């Protein structure tokens, strides 16, 4: 088996606040192979963004209590000095954010912003960096890249700005690209363009990609592996077929049953929402964090924290139900709907 590119071991990120300790990420472990696409699904406050901001080194010991290990290409990023981390960030791991309006600087020309990123990491002249920036803009499908490089971000549409962000993120040929809700702010047709672009660039640059999203559709089409997060923990992980055709966790079932689907049958069926609200990360429910909302809850769920146990291969879930019950309920309640 190939050496994993990224291995996160028992990562916890806790923020001390006046109201108490916010347990944003609470014991997350996973690994990512080179060239793989991982989808991380969860609702607001599930810890999905915080996990990957920590991987990027954008959340550090000054703001939060961080424990565990983030091993990237054999190095633990959490113990890396700040200046070495700066070399990793951007060059080895880069990130694109949800809102391309706020992540580009409005005062600087788009091409100059990309060129600056290149010049921070590589010894090249301004002229060369500019040429590389134009080339990157061309590769992400921006028409007339030489003219576009001299324009300001406000002259770009939302989709074009996201392309420019991707150009910047890929300009140093990183090994890992983290896309945090890359298409949430975009229209569906533009979303499709951007996701296709990421697929294509993944081949071209041979990078591993992490897509953090709340949209189960996006991950179904573009990710090899999927992790579902809830209240700071991974509650289910597996290959995409495991998740869509045999999910094992009641929260995943809830997500699958609560979204309206384009392929649903003609008879209007009621959506099955997950009851209640996501928990506060300060007062996480004891036992399984999902138990107050779970329709299949039993006594043990209220006291014992379930482990993330593998069922077969990659597929693992954090739930006390027996495997046969999980399979039966999934067939009866989730598959029956579609």
């Amino acid at each position: 088996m190939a050496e994993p590119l990224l291995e996160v071991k028992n990562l916890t990120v806790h923020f001390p606040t006046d109201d108490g300790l916010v347990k944003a990420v609470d014991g997350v472990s996973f690994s990512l192979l080179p060239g793989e696409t991982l989808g991380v699904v969860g609702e607001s406050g599930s810890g999905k963004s915080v996990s990957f901001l920590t991987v990027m080194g954008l959340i550090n010991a000054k703001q939060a209590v961080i424990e565990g290990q983030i091993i990237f290409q054999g190095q633990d990023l959490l113990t890396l000095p700040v200046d070495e981390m700066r070399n990793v960030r951007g060059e080895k791991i880069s990130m694109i954010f949800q809102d391309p309006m706020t992540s580009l600087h409005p005062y600087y020309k788009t091409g100059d912003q990309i060129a600056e990123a290149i010049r921070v990491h590589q010894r090249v002249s301004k002229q060369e960096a500019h040429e590389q920036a134009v080339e990157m803009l061309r590769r992400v499908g921006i028409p007339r890249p030489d003219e576009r490089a001299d324009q300001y971000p406000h002259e770009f549409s939302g989709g074009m700005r996201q392309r420019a962000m991707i150009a910047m993120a890929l300009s140093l040929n990183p090994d890992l690209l983290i896309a945090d809700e890359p298409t949430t702010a975009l229209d569906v047709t533009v979303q499709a363009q951007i996701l296709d672009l990421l697929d294509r660039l993944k081949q071209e640059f041979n990078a591993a990609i992490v897509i953090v999203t709340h949209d189960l559709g996006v991950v179904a089409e573009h990710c090899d592996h999927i992790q579902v997060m809830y209240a700071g923990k991974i509650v289910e992980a597996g290959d995409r077929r495991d998740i869509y055709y045999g999910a094992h966790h009641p929260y995943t079932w809830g997500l699958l049953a609560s979204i309206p689907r384009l392929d649903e049958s003609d008879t209007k069926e009621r959506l099955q929402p997950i009851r209640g609200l996501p928990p506060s990360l300060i007062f996480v429910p004891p036992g399984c964090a999902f138990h107050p909302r779970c329709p299949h809850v039993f006594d043990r769920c209220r006291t014992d924290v379930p482990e993330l146990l593998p069922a077969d291969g990659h597929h693992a879930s954090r739930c006390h139900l027996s495997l046969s019950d999980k399979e039966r309920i999934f067939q009866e309640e989730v598959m029956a709907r579609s």
Partner: protein
Amino acid sequence: MSVEVTERPQPQPATSETPLVRIRALRKLFPITRGILFQKRIGDVHAVDGVDLDIKRGETLGLVGETGCGKSTLARVLMRLYDATEGSIEFEGQDITHAKGGDLRELRREMQMIFQDPFASLNPRKTVGSIIGAPYRLHRVVPRNKIKSEVQQLMELVGLNPEHYNRYPHEFSGGQRQRIGVARSLALRPKLIVCDEPVSALDVSIQAQVLNLLEDLQEEFNLTYLFIAHDLSVVKHVSDRVAVMYLGKIVEMAVGQTLYRNPKHPYSGALLSAVPIPDPDLAAAKKRIILEGDVPSPIDPPSGCRFHPRCPNAQFPKCSEEEPELLPHHPGQVAACHFPLEDRAIIETPAGG
């Protein structure tokens, strides 16, 4: 289910045949000016550019389209928040295009709006009770001493705890805030509620709760919805009819599943095929129509069919010169295209599905 409704004299007997809303040749242009002292008009944003639309009583009409296609402007012109540039709007057979003063006030009781952002549409300094009760105070339909109990009934109806009457919006989650917005829009028992992206700011598990609530309320109060959203799956789920807008015009409109089964306009097809499907096998089998580029500027929309610069089926010079009319295709389906798509589903649902 019958619910006590404050009876008001009907302006004129409208039969069940007349649509609740009839929009004809509606245009809304926003002028672009240059200069400070002497403003010179240098162009117009054609936000809504010739829309005919009927909304029937008790139906949910879905309106989809991308950012900047004019769907929200259309809703705001209908709500009389903007004045129409040209064309007419009738509500229950009465022309309301230029309604003013008292007439407009009366009209506000009949149509209400739910906004997208539950964080921006509630005044943070007011209690929930006073936000939901504001329509009662403004329209004086309920005696002052009864407002509180009415508001608490409404809160219960939309699934909020009536004891939270004195709380402030920041104490509620996104989904609960959207329920507050729903309660406020229901206060005057309107006939029409315009829902402008009511669930797009909410998490998926909460989205379903609000969509179910809207469906229940529609049944209970015989509401008519104009449901605007960019998420086609959500629109499909709630709507009886769906209209697709592109650059200020309706390019296709169809009842029920027709649009999803047999889109006729290439733009509808492209929109549908771009929606990610949470099922890897169906997603892989999906027929993709990929659009190039971005939506052109509504300041100077393309000639002929507005979609022609991006259309995979465009044939020249016809598409760039002649503007297509909305023509009937399948029963209950109209589309404005010279070379419509052939009958085929974008998403093949498994037989017997």
